């Protein structure tokens, strides 16, 4: 059996994992490490290969090429049909939209799932009641799942991944079908798992959900990882960040004139070489979005310049989601333009610098 003792904090490692369906490569040469105790956000549009990657980890799909390594008894071991039972024992999965047997209740199904993974029979009843209460579905615990809404099924799906109290939790699009309140609940839930010392690997196409909780973000596009690191490091790689600026009032002659007025005030302090369209106005939110090089000193300079020029600023912030969106679009467009060359650069350069784990 293949074993590897390197990188003792790596719990899961994808090594050149590729999955093909016929001639179509759903996932190509994915290299990704998941470290103990971290929250790794897996970001990508629909059809990018997020679920396929997670299914390979759950052994629902076998990689056409490459391997998935998981830490068993202190050592990383290659996931195979022979050891999958033991390697996956400490992992909880929610893969794609959860589908349950419609004529069963959450109590019956979650008890079954928990006990399959060896959760003590004497404690499973209390455990199921506790986790169902966590998602606010206590009143529904003995109702048939077939009568549940999509959001309720999603909540049951999320807790089905933790019913046996695993150390690693893999959640594929946990926010799908949830209303804003429930999404907030899932965010808090993920952070709570981290507080409990769990490792969380979750995917989403929702930038905000990833940016709010993830320690690191892996971006995938067309089955290939295009970037993976902390938000801060990705930001420094992109040499770009965004300030959101809300003014007390927008002049009567419109936002365009305000952009022209702000240009000489802010321009010298952005630290950007290319200042094309670096100030944008979002008419929906009535907020000015200003790109700068991400250096906090520049951020202070911009704020001072605005204050000195007498601009009435109501709100001045650097939202994570906005930044992530820019980064994501940048990496996506670069990957399309440069193809494999870009990807290889992302894979090898950071490794040499010890910054990027892709």
């Amino acid at each position, binding site marked *: 059996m293949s074993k590897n003792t390197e990188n003792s904090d790596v719990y899961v490692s994808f090594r050149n994992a590729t999955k093909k*369906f016929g001639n179509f490569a759903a996932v190509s040469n994915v290299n990704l490490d998941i470290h103990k105790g971290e929250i790794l956000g897996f970001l990508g549009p629909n059809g990018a290969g997020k679920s396929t990657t997670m*299914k390979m980890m*759950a*052994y*629902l*799909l*076998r990689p056409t090429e490459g391997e998935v390594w998981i830490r068993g008894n202190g050592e990383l071991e290659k996931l195979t049909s022979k050891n*999958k*039972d*033991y390697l*996956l*024992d400490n*992992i909880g*999965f*929610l*893969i*794609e*939209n*959860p*589908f*349950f*047997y419609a*004529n*069963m209740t959450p109590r*019956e199904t979650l008890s*079954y*799932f928990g*006990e*399959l*993974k*060896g*959760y*003590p029979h*004497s*404690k499973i009843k209390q455990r199921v009641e506790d986790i169902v209460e966590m998602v606010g579905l206590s009143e529904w615990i003995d109702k048939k799942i077939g009568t549940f809404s999509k959001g309720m099924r999603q909540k049951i*799906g999320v807790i*089905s991944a933790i019913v046996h*109290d695993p*150390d690693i939790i893999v959640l594929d699009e946990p926010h799908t079908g949830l209303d804003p309140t429930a999404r907030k609940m899932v965010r808090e839930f993920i952070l709570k798992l981290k*507080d*409990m*010392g769990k490792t969380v690997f979750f995917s989403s196409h929702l930038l905000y959900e990833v940016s709010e909780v993830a320690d690191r973000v892996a971006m995938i596009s067309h089955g290939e990882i295009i970037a993976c690191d902390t938000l801060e490091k990705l930001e420094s790689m992109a040499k770009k960040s965004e300030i959101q600026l809300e003014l007390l009032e927008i002049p009567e002659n419109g936002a365009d004139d305000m952009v022209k007025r702000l240009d000489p005030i802010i321009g010298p302090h952005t630290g950007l070489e290319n200042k094309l369209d670096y100030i944008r106005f979002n008419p929906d939110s009535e907020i000015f979005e200003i790109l700068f090089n991400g250096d906090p000193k520049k951020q202070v300079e911009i704020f001072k310049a605005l204050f000195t020029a007498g601009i009435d600023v109501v709100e001045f912030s650097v939202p994570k989601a906005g930044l992530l969106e820019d980064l994501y679009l940048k990496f996506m467009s670069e990957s399309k333009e440069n193809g494999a060359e870009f990807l290889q650069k992302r894979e090898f350069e950071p490794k040499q610098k010890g910054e990027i784990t892709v």
Partner: protein
Amino acid sequence: MAELQTQTQAQADNMILTEQRTKIGTKRSYLQIEKTIKYDFLRNGMKFISMLIMSFLIFALFLIIEIIDESNGAIVPTDPADYFEGYLMMISFIILIVASTFGGSMIAEDFEKQTGNLLFPKITKDRLLFGRFIARYSYSAISVTFYYILVAIATVLKYNAIPKFVWGSLGWALLYTFALLSFVTFFSAIMKRSSSATIYSILIVLIVFQLLTMILMVTGVTIEPFFMLTYYSNIITSWFHMPEERYMELPFHRGPEGISENTFYSWITPSATGAVIGMLVWSVITLTIAYLVFRRRQNK
């Protein structure tokens, strides 16, 4: 500080839990099979009740026909075995419906409804299939036995005795149920949908095998049709009066004046040994293929 305390407490709880958790190995395997059986019993409870109702309705139908026949002066069998055998005319059909109902969804359902995404990372497919098969076979067997019990009650009420061959016949019925459930499970493994597995199984048993039987009769092939699963169902009723000659030639006259004369050849029933071996071979082959397909089958 509070965060550290929470983490320490969580780690301590986790250690206690790890100790209490059933370890991977033989004990866990048995536990998983046991839990799967219980869960599948719960899951198929309504189907089971439906099958019991179906058995009762078919029994009631035969009983009503018998009462009407008697009131019309039909001859009542003197031997309780004959009376009992009369109720078994549709036993093959009952077993087919029961087996296809419980077997059709055995494997296909988890791929069709994607419930496997949640289930397969938690249990190996061999244990899952084993547990489910036991649960569903138990329900199927109880449904068939229930029909026998109803007929037995009617026989006791009428004759105050039960023919000794009933138990042998029930044994053959249960073995045939096992073989047919394995056959349907095979279709469940290769079909995308549970309904397709159910329908194809029924069609093959009712049409393809019957067609093959007719072809064999007409062509006069004398080889015993061990390769036909439906052939083994004959022993369920034949057990009451096992014929000395299991091979039969039937003269058949066609045309209004019987001008064109023909002879059909037919095997009435397999021998007891042949039936046991044949049905077990069918079960082993179909179940093994079903398992291998299930193991290889991946979610998309």
